[in-house]
């Protein structure tokens, strides 16, 4: 099995604050890997460091067998795409969907942009009628679909998903999760997904890492959560908390 992503003792330090400390993990091609934790656990920082949005202070990142240097080439940004949490903040408010989707194609010098834009919209279930709308004319779920289309339009092999559904209603979340699973199957993508919701992570990922305070707590198979086969108290607490309020506890 080939490795899509190999992270070795990655550190991210902001001034004197250590956001990520010596985290290592490997994700196989076609696999879906989850990162779970509370705010400040470093789960998003890890994703952002891979995407090149957070400063790497130590350790190495290999993507598809190639180690990333200080400066990343264009090919990297084509291979690795990211979908952000807030669909309201991640789309340019004054660009139409068409313009939003054209930009990455332009940057990477794609031909037949017309066809690709139409196909990308089709793929995320929006259809061509959405092409010339602005993001404020779309609902949260539709926006997230546009963000996914924008990520997929470059035909990446790895998709980094940072809480892609936590800003959405439960019913819309189900639709977006189904869409993500569908495109992963169709395009044999590798996912690294961040979420605070254990239910979402076990649904989407085969393996996961629980994080706290910038470090790994433990690594689990998705099935371990269902059978409560966890070693750390921290994970156990998260599991209990995910079941809701218990009176008298």
């Amino acid at each position, binding site marked *: 099995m080939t490795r899509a992503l190999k992270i070795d003792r990655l550190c991210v330090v902001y001034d004197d604050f250590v956001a990520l400390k010596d985290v290592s993990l490997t994700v196989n091609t076609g696999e879906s890997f989850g990162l779970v934790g509370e705010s400040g656990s470093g789960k998003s920082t890890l994703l952002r460091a891979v995407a090149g949005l957070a400063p790497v202070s130590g350790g190495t990142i290999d993507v598809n067998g190639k180690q990333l240097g200080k400066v990343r080439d264009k090919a990297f940004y084509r291979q690795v795409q990211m979908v952000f949490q807030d669909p309201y903040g991640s789309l340019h408010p004054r660009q139409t969907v068409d313009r939003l989707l054209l930009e990455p194609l332009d940057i990477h010098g794609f031909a037949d942009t017309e066809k690709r834009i139409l196909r990308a919209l089709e793929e995320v279930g929006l259809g061509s009628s959405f092409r010339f709308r602005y993001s404020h004319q779309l609902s949260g779920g539709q926006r997230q679909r546009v963000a996914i289309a924008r990520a997929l339009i470059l035909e990446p092999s790895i998709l980094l998903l940072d809480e892609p559904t936590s800003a959405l209603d439960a019913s819309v979340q189900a639709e977006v999760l189904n869409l993500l*699973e569908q495109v992963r199957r169709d395009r044999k993508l590798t996912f690294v997904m961040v979420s605070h919701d254990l239910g979402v992570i076990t649904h989407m990922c085969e393996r996961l890492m629980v994080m706290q305070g910038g470090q790994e707590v433990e690594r689990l198979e998705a099935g371990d*959560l269902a059978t409560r086969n966890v070693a750390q108290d921290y994970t156990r607490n998260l599991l209990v908390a995910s079941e809701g*309020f218990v009176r008298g506890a």
Partner: protein
Amino acid sequence: MSAMLHVEDLRVEFPTRTGMVQAVRGVTFSLGQERLGIVGESGSGKSQTGRAIMGLTPEHANISARRLEFSGIDLLKVSPAQRRDLRGNRIAMILQDPKYSLDPVMTIGRQIVETLRTHEKVSKAEAREKALDMLAAVQIRDPRRVFALYPHEVSGGMGQRAMIAMMLIAGPELLIADEPTSALDVTVQLDILRILDRLVIDRGMGLIFISHDLRLVSTFCDRVIVMYAGRIVEELKASELSQAQHPYTQGLLNCMPRIGADRHPLPVLDRKPEWLL
């Protein structure tokens, strides 16, 4: 149990360029000293229902009801001054994000003292003591330190505790909590709910808990109202949520990924036009 709040046929509508938008379309319920959950998705009118009771409906909106009454007071007929007197004193509201609902340029202590002194004639020193007690009551370990901090200097969970302290210091009879824990981590969420739960029981308050999270509400509240497109589609005991009758409630429960359930793809909500009627 006598009801303190009566809502009958509440309607809230907003004028827009394309005509009137009806956010709340005939909501009826009453509330005693209990925990009532209002659940729905964005745009279901759950927050506007809470705001109408609190008297925070924007001025350009039309609000009407056959009855909107809080402990014998007709909320639609009272003067703005009386309304102000009720608000924060007998009816209080907790909002979602402490980052936005606390004054950023005022220390936490001063905000709590201000709330108390607005509604009760107490000396500064006495108000300070009460505020410190209240901060301790919401389980802030070092009330004196937090008293002097600004909102940006505390975490989300701490900010929400401060917000609860501020809302409860005047001893309200009715507390409206609009997504009070949605911006918080799950474990912090439960701490906050535990504090709310105890305070509501100890003080005999009525609580309206507005949330999009059906599972959370059903574990916390006594009774749940499910709203869809401005109407109540179903009302049930929280303990009987699994026996929900309306397809919307069932769909909402069903579409959430669960640990240990292997459902690919997830069932999605099939919105029927007749639900809108």
